[in-house]
Every structure is written in C-alpha cells, then in structure tokens.
C-alpha cells in the first residue's frame, strides 16, 4: 500500500518533477504508485504489455534482452532518478522491447501508462513537459547504445586503407 506522504516525498526528490507546476504535480501524483523489488526480481518481461513508466528511486535496475543462443544480455542499467520503460508513453510500440530486473534491492515509482498518455492528450502543456523530458532520456539512451555499438574498447582490428 502506497502511503501518500511517502509518494509525495519520493516525487519531490526527482529533479524533473521539481520543475513541474503545482497543477501538473498534483495530476501526476494521482497515477503514481511505489513498488519495491528484491535483488534479482523481474520488474517486467520482454513482450509484456506496457503498463507503467518507472522512475528508479533507490537501487539499480538492469535492462535486458534475450538473444536466442546467448541467453539474457544486460544492455544497460538505470540508476536512481533514471527512467525505465519510457516507450510506454509513446503510442506506437505496444509491447516491451526489453525486460527489466532489479540488480540491487530497489524502490521504483510507477506511473500508469494509459492514464499518463490520456493526461498528455487532454492537457498539451502537461504533455509537452513530459515528452520533452522523455526525449532527453531517449537521446541519452541512443548515445549510450551507439557508443556501446562502436565497441570502442575492443581489441584492435587490422587497419584498413580507404
């Protein structure tokens, strides 16, 4: 059971929530819940319906993908104050493209994705604020993904003449 005080304190600690208007804060508070996970516990599986947008409050969450023949690969970890499952807010993708699992004992705040999308549709100011924040998150993830893709620490390859 989520305690209202606990919820308000948790949301106030998140930097981008501190920049919300009172009205928007009150709105988003209504769809927020706090979840606790033990180390190793699954938060959601790849393929699950997208139900929540999460923000990590404490602990560490790993984002994983299953690769046939290789098992579960840990792509990224999310630290306190980082988002998990941003794609639940964009209408296009219907299912989780990766799984999330708590690496350390973790506490997350979850926002009902359907409700959040509805609120963004109805109040465009609120929607713009939320989307702006999430675009930054996606940008950071994209950069990280690219740098990982470039495999910059790999053993040197034969140098090629262009």
């Amino acid at each position, binding site marked *: 059971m989520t305690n209202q005080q606990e919820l308000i304190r948790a949301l106030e600690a998140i930097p981008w929530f501190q920049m919300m208007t009172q009205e928007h804060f009150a709105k988003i508070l209504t769809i927020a819940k706090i979840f606790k996970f033990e180390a190793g516990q699954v938060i959601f599986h790849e393929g699950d319906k997208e139900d929540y947008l999460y923000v990590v409050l404490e602990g560490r969450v790993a984002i994983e993908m299953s690769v046939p023949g290789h098992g579960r690969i840990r792509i990224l970890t999310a630290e306190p104050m980082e988002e998990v499952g941003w794609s639940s807010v964009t209408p296009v993708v219907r299912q989780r493209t990766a799984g999330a699992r708590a690496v350390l004992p973790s506490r997350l705040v979850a926002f009902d994705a359907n409700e959040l999308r509805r609120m963004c549709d109805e109040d465009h100011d609120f929607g713009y604020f939320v989307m702006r924040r999430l675009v930054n998150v996606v940008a950071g993830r994209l950069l990280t993904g690219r740098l990982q893709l470039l495999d910059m620490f*790999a053993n*040197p*390859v034969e*140098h*090629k*003449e*262009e």
Partner: protein
Amino acid sequence: MAEIQISVGSTIALPKAALEKLVANLHRMGYQVLGPQIQDGAIVYKPLESAQVLPRGYTSQQDSAHYHLVYTGHQRYFDVTPGAQSWKQFFFPPQTELASYMREENGRWKIEERIIDQTPLALFGVFPCDLAAIQIQDRIFLREEWKDPFYWAHRQSAFILAVNCLHPCGTGFCASMGTGPKASSGFDLNLTELEDVFLVEIGSEGGRLVMEGLPILPTSAFWLQARQNSLDEASSKMGRSLPAPQDLPDLLLNNLDAQQWDDVARRCMSCSSCTQVCPTCFCWDARDSADLTGQTARRERLWDSCFNQDYSYIVGGNSRPNTRSRYRQWLTHKFASWYAQFGTSGCVGCGRCITWCPAKIDVTAEIRAIREEVQA
C-alpha cells in the same frame, strides 16, 4: 702586386681557372669534397675529385614531371640547378645504424660500442635554397636538449661552399620564400659565377683559410654591378611564385575541410617522391631486426614519409587512412605547422617536389587553388 687582405665578410675575386686549386686546397685540408656531377642523365652529389668533373656547359630544364639536362657548351660550372638529390643525405642519411646489440654469456643484451664516422665533408656548390634547407634541418636535429649524434658527426665539421643561383630552375620559387637566389648566411664561402671570375664572399674563418695561396684579385665595381644585375635578373625569371607564405598557417589550418584537398587527393598517388626529394623533410622510422640465432640485433634509422600507409597507425586503426588526409598532412606541415614547431616555413622553394612529382602536382598551384576557394 699589393697584398690583398682577405677577411671574414669581405668579397674577393677568383679567376675561373683557379677553381681547380680551390678544390685541391679542400682535399689537402682533409675534407672529403662532395659536389654535383652528372650520372644517369641527372645531377647527383658525390665525391668530387676535381673541378674538371663539374657539369660545366650544361643547363637543366625543369617543369612538372620534367627534368632534362642539356649541353650547350657554355663555359660556366654552376648553371645547372640541382636534381632529385639534396644535401640532406649526408647529414641525415637514408639509412643509418642506430645501435647494434650482442648477447652476453648470461643471455642479457649488450650495446656494442661504435664509432660514428666523423670525416669532415666539404659541400661544394650548395645553392641558396639548399643552404636554407640545411639551416632548417639544423633546427630539427640539433636542439637544446639533445643533438642527433649522426647529424652532428658530419655537420659540426662541414665546410659549405655556396653558389648564388643565376639561372633559376623553373620549378623553384625561392624568391617568394626569401631563400634565394642569393645566399645570405650560413656558408664558409659563397661564389657568384661571372664571365671570367668568381666573386667570392668569405663567410667564415674556415673559408678564409681555404683561400690561402690562391691567385685572388680585388673586386671591382664593375664585377659587383655584374653580380647585382645577374641576381636581379634571376629574381625576375623565377618560374613559380608563392605570394605571402607567412599567411599560410592561417589559410591552411583554418581550411582543413576545403574542397581542394579532395581534388588533389584524386591526383596524388601517395608515392612519397616529394618527401624523398624535399631537402627539409625529416621524418624517419626506427626498424629493429635480429639474426636467426637471436644472438645479435640491430636498430636502424630509415627515412620515412607521411605518405606511407603505416605512418599514422595507432592501436585500433589509422588516423590518416587515405590519400586526402595524408596529402593534407604534408602540405599543412610544410607550409603551416612548421612555423609553430621550428619558427620558419618548412619550404625553401627549391621546386624539387614539383619537378619530381609523377602526377604533376604543383604545390604553388595547389595553394593558389585553396586561396581562391577560400576567397570565393
């Protein structure tokens, strides 16, 4: 006959016939004399036994990818301008042994003591562009913190007999670079070849000593004027020019993305000829080798070139993986970065890179093209 005083800084005249004696004096003083001679249709620098083997009567015709020696039968010794070789091969040889190692009884390596050859060299017939190049290389190989022992071994005792250039080579632009056609300093003797005599400027005590016993004459106003006229005429007959070389650091380093780099990259073959003939290029590589038994090893220094593929290899790749980046490196180093590194331009305007580029790339034309592109 009145005794003519030769002093450092003075100019005297030497009858042409006495050139032979000058060479003999140098030999007698223990120098190995090196001078221009014709071999395989080109001028090379090699041991000079006497003035007789100088390329008297020849001129050279040079243009992009064109070099031709022509015998016209004139009586002058120093009309013909340099070929592909420069004097850097004597102070900075293409191949030098840096160290040789031997295994001791306990399996450890020992560096063998070696004596570096210290034969004093006399460079006979150094054109002003090449003289400037030697001074540029001095700044590279002789530093405050260390002296390259191989460069120093020959450089410290070298005698330089310079020759003013009265018949510009056609591809050179020394007047633009401020390095010619007249030699201004750094020589022991500097000759200007007139019809009957050489005017000889005494540049050092060593130069003065070599002139002893020679049938010198006092200069005359007539000869001095003739010298001036010849030099003025030479300055006006330069085949190429490079305006405002001091502006090139800004021009080149601020336009590293110019289209012209792509253009020249299409023509350049990365053959490295320009760096080999250039009298200031100094890049080298150390190569280690061991014999099959593993009992001896050696370290050699070899000329290298920024056009070589491996030159910019770094772990994980090549920081200059194509001709465009390598040509750009060479040109920007020579005409721009060199100022920051050594205080002068790296180019003396000798024109060799233009003569000897098989793709007919002309640095003055490339720079002009970049200027035009930037100003457009």
